């Protein structure tokens, strides 16, 4: 086993990895930018090395600086966490060249899965279901032939696409020609390229993914699925395991397919195979993430396995000691990502100082966070403050536990999405598993607090001024004077009358 590991990340995931290392008796090395000197990962690590200015491109993304810190500290391995250099195959390559173990898959596997078209080809070769459609860009004639073959509704997508531009949903044949023309002209003006391809449209899709764990001795296992359909701006906000929307049969099939994909690239470590699923439980390969996932804790809660520790042990050459049929899941886990952002203003980040923080606790409640009273959320990094994870015997138990934990959470100083998360937990459609990836857009009323919630805040605001006035008067008066007992009244009369 390694004696010392460098964590090439920041925020809650760096804290999570540091904790895993400590439990394994491994010494920890943190790296930090100017903006992170006071961050929790620096406070918790055994060693800490400064790597430059706040901008990620000048610190956390500079491979050479990370390698230099590893060498200076004598770390034998680097855990990249997620984001930053975690899916950068040339960094994995560089680590190998420098004789440092990269805790993750091979550079080759990262590269293959990093390219979406290559990844789809690998999936196709492994006979993994893909959303049916044209084989790359098509002519007008080919497009209508493909649409006819795969059946309506279909999506026309710009090859150079992005941001929904050059995209058209076609529900029936009669509209195809005109919508195709529109998609092309939009693509031409947006990207200077009017080539398009055609894909089957998946109605009301759900996002389901399979956690993979593989050792370097050829064993590839899956740790069941997570459902991450509650998203805003194409980013997950609430995740759960298992999915309440799939049958045992689908679960088994999906797990097998994911193992097949991972095996095709000789996968090693922890990874996630993402699928899009329709309401009839037909699922299609989306992509594979070759790193630890933000939402990995829900899988840990239902399987009892520590995925981060296994990543480290696998990188150190250990074999997975269990078989697929030794892995069981129990109960239900939910994760809510707590962000410094404003749900009422299209989830715009809300940087600032967290003047006051109180974290929830209790049985079955896990808060993976990096915050404390006085912590500053800067505009340089992702505004995620915490991942609140709960485990319950059933999904309903887990929802109630999450609700209670969210209500204990206090963050003063910046806007957060906690109120929004509470409203989702109370939502009937969420409770009844009646949702898809369009959930948040469909129910905009969840974004704002209800008006009757204003009474108590107003009372508290009034009391705050009152106690402040009383305190000010206390300071200016002699102790034990009669004045003190009337301070509040006099203080107020002074402010408002004199």
């Amino acid at each position: 086993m390694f004696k010392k590991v460098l964590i090439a990340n920041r925020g809650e995931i760096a804290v999570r990895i540091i904790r895993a290392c400590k439990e394994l008796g491994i010494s920890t090395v943190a790296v930090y930018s100017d903006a992170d000197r006071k961050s929790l990962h620096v406070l918790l690590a055994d060693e800490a090395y400064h790597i430059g200015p706040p901008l990620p491109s000048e610190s956390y993304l500079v491979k050479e600086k990370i390698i230099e810190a590893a060498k200076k500290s004598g770390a034998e391995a680097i855990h990249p966490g997620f984001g930053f250099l975690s899916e950068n195959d040339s960094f994995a390559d560089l680590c190998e060249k420098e004789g440092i173990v990269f805790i993750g898959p091979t550079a080759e596997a990262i590269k293959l899965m990093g390219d979406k078209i290559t990844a789809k080809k690998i999936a196709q070769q492994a006979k993994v279901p893909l959303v049916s459609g044209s084989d790359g860009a098509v002519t007008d004639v080919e497009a209508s032939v493909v649409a006819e073959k795969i059946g309506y509704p279909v999506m026309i997508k710009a090859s150079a696409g992005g941001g929904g531009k050059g995209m058209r949903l076609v529900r029936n044949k009669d509209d195809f020609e005109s919508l195709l023309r529109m998609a092309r002209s939009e693509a031409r003006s947006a990207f200077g390229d009017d080539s398009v391809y055609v894909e089957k449209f998946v109605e009301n899709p759900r996002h389901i993914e399979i956690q993979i764990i593989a050792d370097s001795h050829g064993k590839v296992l899956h740790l069941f699925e997570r459902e991450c359909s509650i998203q805003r701006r194409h980013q997950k906000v609430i995740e759960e395991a298992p999915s309440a929307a799939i049958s045992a049969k689908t679960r088994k099939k999906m797990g097998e397919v994911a193992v097949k994909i991972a095996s095709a690239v000789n996968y090693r470590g922890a990874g996630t195979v993402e699928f899009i699923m329709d309401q009839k439980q037909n699922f299609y390969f989306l992509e594979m993430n070759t790193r630890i996932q933000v939402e990995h804790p829900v899988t840990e809660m239902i399987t009892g396995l520590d995925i981060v520790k296994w990543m480290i042990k696998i990188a150190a050459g250990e074999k997975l000691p269990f078989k697929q049929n030794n892995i069981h899941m129990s109960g239900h886990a939910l994760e809510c990502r707590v962000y410094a952002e404003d749900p009422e203003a299209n989830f715009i980040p809300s940087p600032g100082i967290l003047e006051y923080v109180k974290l929830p606790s209790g049985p079955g409640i896990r808060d993976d966070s990096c915050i404390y009273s006085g912590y500053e959320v800067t505009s340089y990094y992702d505004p995620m403050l915490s991942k609140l994870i709960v485990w319950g015997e059933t999904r309903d138990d887990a929802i109630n536990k999450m609700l209670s934990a969210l209500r204990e959470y206090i963050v003063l100083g910046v806007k957060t999405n906690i109120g929004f998360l509470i409203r989702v937990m109370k939502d009937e459609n969420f409770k009844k598993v009646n949702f898809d990836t369009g959930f948040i857009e469909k129910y905009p009323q969840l974004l704002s607090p209800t008006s009757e919630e204003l009474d108590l805040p107003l009372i508290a605001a009034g009391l705050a001024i009152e106690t402040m006035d009383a305190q000010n008067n206390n300071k200016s008066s002699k102790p034990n004077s009669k004045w003190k007992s009337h301070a509040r009244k006099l203080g107020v009369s002074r402010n408002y009358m004199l």
Partner: protein
Amino acid sequence: MEISCKKTWCLEELHAMTYSFKHKNKIYKLSFEDEGDRLVVELEGSKKPIEYKKIDDYLYSIIISGKSHSLAVLKKGKEIQIFFQGNLFNFETVSEIEQARGGHAASGANQISAPMPSRIVKVLKEKGAQVEQGEGVIVVEAMKMESELKSPLSGTIKEIKVSEGDTVEGGEILVLLSAD
């Protein structure tokens, strides 16, 4: 201890204290009445006895008709931030005088507000000073960049709500002006 006659008179007269807060351009009034052994709050026409304790610098415990509530409060000048059940509420305290004037504090062009969460670097003008339209009044820093906030009108600085070094929310009103 000298409690003057005048103050004693105040004590008699003002056993109820009224506060006004602005939230999303609406003004809310509430008053506390000290009935000796209990405090009664009146809000939107309904009266309730309340009991409260300050737990630490930020946290208040309030019990109303047996129901226990915890709220966190942060005061920044005239702005009050309340965190309650996952939601953050921003109130602005409205004085009797402002209210008498109709609470026009936030009526568009006669104010300067922070475009985003930022820190006040420099206050360039004083209260009562004359400004020309487009003249710089406050320098703020956000995302490591300084920018000068300019007066939207020619007139007089009525009030400067912040001082150098303050951290402000996006949208927070920094300066009130009155047009010539």
